[in-house]
């Protein structure tokens, strides 16, 4: 009897021991071996980014020298662009700043009707409004403020530009049709762009076209791209397509005895042509295409008409975020007796002038509408005035910061929501570096250091894109609950049944014994 009792006791201890091993060792082991590896992410800092406020400082200095000395030297020449150059030499202005030189009202440096002359660099000449001699310096300066503000807002960024840059994140409340068109036209910020120049020759039997594209790119396009180097990397290539036709049949217009393409039919031109264009398969950078179409001999000359049926002087059109097409008529270059195919050298200066203008629009250089009395110096061969570049840099920085912060916050949200994604160490590292770059970019923007802000914002966007689009972040580990049960039940049920039953038996025996004891003591 006692031996049986002992056996039972040992049995109970064994059952309890096994249950203890299962709970203490087995369950944690199973949990650890079936969890997904998730590296630590700075979630708190990321949630701070969500409510980020960016203050951009627009540094401007007001040179109050009354520029008589310089003015007098230049009066005789009345060449104010030279004056601008010498003024620029005076004070090398940093990226993002605007320098306004105030000249006396009576100065003849600027012609009569011109109030402000905006130079190619970052300086402007402002003719001061008339003031009473009784005013002291403070009053004079405060009187100038309005004028200076006008100049600065033309040359530098304003509220509209920032809102346009953030157009896909922020709902634009008061949107003019033009600013909406502006925001849709500029291509989204990207670390690199590909620019492709294509020559379309539908009629090689009649025209043998020669274009010095390499030289043209070197002299006309490359200076602009060099200036835009802080924004993105550019790669340029070119191609020639033979027997490529426009998808639209042009109409013959008797009044000008030429073929015309109406503005409405232009939108159908691009898609058939695009199918034939080659592009660099290796990169996934956005492509800007610039096509030069030389009409075939039977359909020459070909002119583009705008919506009011007037001839378009540039004979070119562009499509937002895609590129531009220019029609180049060569019928005047040869007579009917010329031997076919006719050798034709394309005037690259004219062509590149159009393409450069289109490129500026594509890249987001906003169209300036200066108030009356302003004269803007033409950017010339550089393609871009310094202050226009600054404006572009401002909007790019803001856009980059907005995009990077949205990417990081949505990535964090995603990873939080979908618990089954494996987070590798390199992703955590990218995210951390993106967060630090973003914080630096915002700090630089507040301090007004445009160049550094842009650089940090670029780093931030690169890191955040790399983290978000990492191929390893795939949520293929989605198991619906019934599948999970189906996997584990055959493994664990046979194990658990003896354990649970024996535990239950122990508990019921203990209860019975306690009840017996109770009955005995009564």
């Amino acid at each position, binding site marked *: 009897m006692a031996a049986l009792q002992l056996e039972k006791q040992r049995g109970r201890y064994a059952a309890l021991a096994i249950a203890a091993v299962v709970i203490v060792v087995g369950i944690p082991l199973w949990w650890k071996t079936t969890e997904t590896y998730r590296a630590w992410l700075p979630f708190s800092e990321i949630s701070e980014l969500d409510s980020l406020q960016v203050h951009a400082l627009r540094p401007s200095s007001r040179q109050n020298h009354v520029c008589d000395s310089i003015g007098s030297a230049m009066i005789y020449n009345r060449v104010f662009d030279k004056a601008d150059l010498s003024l620029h030499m005076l004070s090398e202005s940093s990226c993002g700043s605007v320098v306004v030189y105030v000249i006396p009202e009576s100065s003849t440096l600027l012609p009569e009707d011109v109030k402000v002359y905006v130079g190619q660099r970052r300086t402007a000449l402002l003719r001061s409004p008339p003031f009473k001699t009784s005013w002291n310096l403070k009053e004079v300066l405060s009187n100038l403020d309005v004028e200076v503000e006008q100049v600065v807002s033309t040359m530098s960024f304003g509220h509209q530009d920032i809102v346009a840059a953030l157009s896909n994140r922020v709902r634009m409340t008061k949107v003019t049709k033009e600013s909406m068109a502006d925001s849709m036209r500029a291509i989204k910020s990207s670390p690199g762009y590909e620019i492709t120049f294509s020559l379309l020759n539908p009629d090689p039997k009649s025209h043998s076209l020669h274009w010095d594209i390499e030289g043209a790119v070197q002299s006309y396009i490359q200076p602009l791209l060099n200036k835009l180097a802080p924004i993105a990397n550019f790669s340029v290539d070119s191609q020639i397509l033979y027997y490529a036709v426009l998808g639209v049949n042009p109409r013959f217009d008797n009044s000008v005895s030429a073929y015309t393409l109406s503005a409405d039919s232009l939108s159908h031109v691009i898609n058939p042509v695009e199918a034939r264009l080659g592009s660099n398969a290796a990169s996934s950078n956005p492509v800007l295409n610039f096509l030069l179409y030389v009409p075939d001999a039977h359909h020459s000359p070909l002119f583009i008409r705008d919506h009011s049926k007037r001839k378009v002087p*540039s004979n070119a059109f562009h499509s937002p975020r895609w590129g531009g097409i220019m029609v180049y008529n060569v019928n005047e270059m040869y007579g009917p007796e010329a031997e076919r195919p006719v050798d034709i050298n394309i005037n690259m200066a004219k062509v*590149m002038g159009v393409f450069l203008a289109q490129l500026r629009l594509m890249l987001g250089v906003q169209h300036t509408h200066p108030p009356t009395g302003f004269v803007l110096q033409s950017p010339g061969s550089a393609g871009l005035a310094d202050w226009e570049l600054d404006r572009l840099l401002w909007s790019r920085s803001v856009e980059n910061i907005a995009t990077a912060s949205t990417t990081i916050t949505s990535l964090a949200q995603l990873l939080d929501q979908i618990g089954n994604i494996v987070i590798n160490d390199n992703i955590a590292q990218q995210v951390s570096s993106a967060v630090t770059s973003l914080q630096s970019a915002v700090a630089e923007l507040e301090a007004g250091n445009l160049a550094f802000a842009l650089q940090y914002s670029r780093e931030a966007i690169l890191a955040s894109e790399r983290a978000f689009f990492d191929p390893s972040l795939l949520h293929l580990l989605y198991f619906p609950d019934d599948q999970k049960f189906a996997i584990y039940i055959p493994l664990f049920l046979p194990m658990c049944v003896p354990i649970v039953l024996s535990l239950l038996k122990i508990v019921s025996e203990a209860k019975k014994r306690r009840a017996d004891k109770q009955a005995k003591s009564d």
Partner: protein
Amino acid sequence: IFWFNYRHVANTLSVYRSVKRLGIPDSHIVLMLADDMACNYRNPKPATVFSHKNMELNVYGDDVEVDYRGYEVTVENFLRVLTGRLPPSTPRSKRLLSDDRSNILIYLTGHGGNGFLKFQDSEEISNMELADAFEQMWQKRRYNELLFIIDTCQGASMYERFYSPNLMALASSQVGEDSLSVSHTFFTCLFQFKVCPQSQCVSTPGHRTDLFQRDPGSVLITDFFGSVRKVEITKDTINLTSPVEPPIKRSGSGDIQIESLTYVDQLPVAEIIHQKPKQKDWHPPDGFILGLWTLILLVFFQTYGIKHLKHIF
């Protein structure tokens, strides 16, 4: 790879043709096809796929550009294309290079069930995975509006879980119904949306438009099926002067030096073949847990013998 799945390939190719005819170029189409019908030995007319038994229209044609075929059509690749998480070596034609102004049309066809779609008879994609993928696309603004058409049995279950904005979904059959799809009748159902009687369409089409921000009545099919680019006239040009030709100094002799051309280094094959071994995480060997339990039980029974089981139970 069964012959009676011919209709799925035919359906997909018909949609592909329509979309191309309405102007979308191949660079904007990602076509994933288990491309095994045209050259199947059971195909009476090799290299062709017809969408109607009258054999009027060869939808396979000469210029079909299949981006993912055969074994590449997997759930993983599909999700990778949608979310953009492709390895850096993927070429442009296999990527979905869309931005926040793109309208996307997704057409899926095949066999499916309640909440999933079969891929290649061996894999499934669930509606939750699809909804998550669309949410990731929305977060990264990879689409402006998205039209999702699904042509499978119980197709409506696939769009039940969507939660991202600007999605519109159409399905050829509701949950619990089978879809015996023939693409032409499906398209006529599509265009006369609520006018399709049960007898002609066999299954009831379903749709979901609550996530769409515009009024669905104002949405044109061609918003998704075709594309017309917005165009502006270029008004300004920049005046450029011809650059002065820099005098090219030739070295003394009149011979023109021609550089000997060399081939660019091809991909270094050695590097490709000897890839770094993938770092595998350490998992305990298979069956370890099973073995552990067996050990525990054995020890238990060893100690107390089988006959003492009655003390336990």
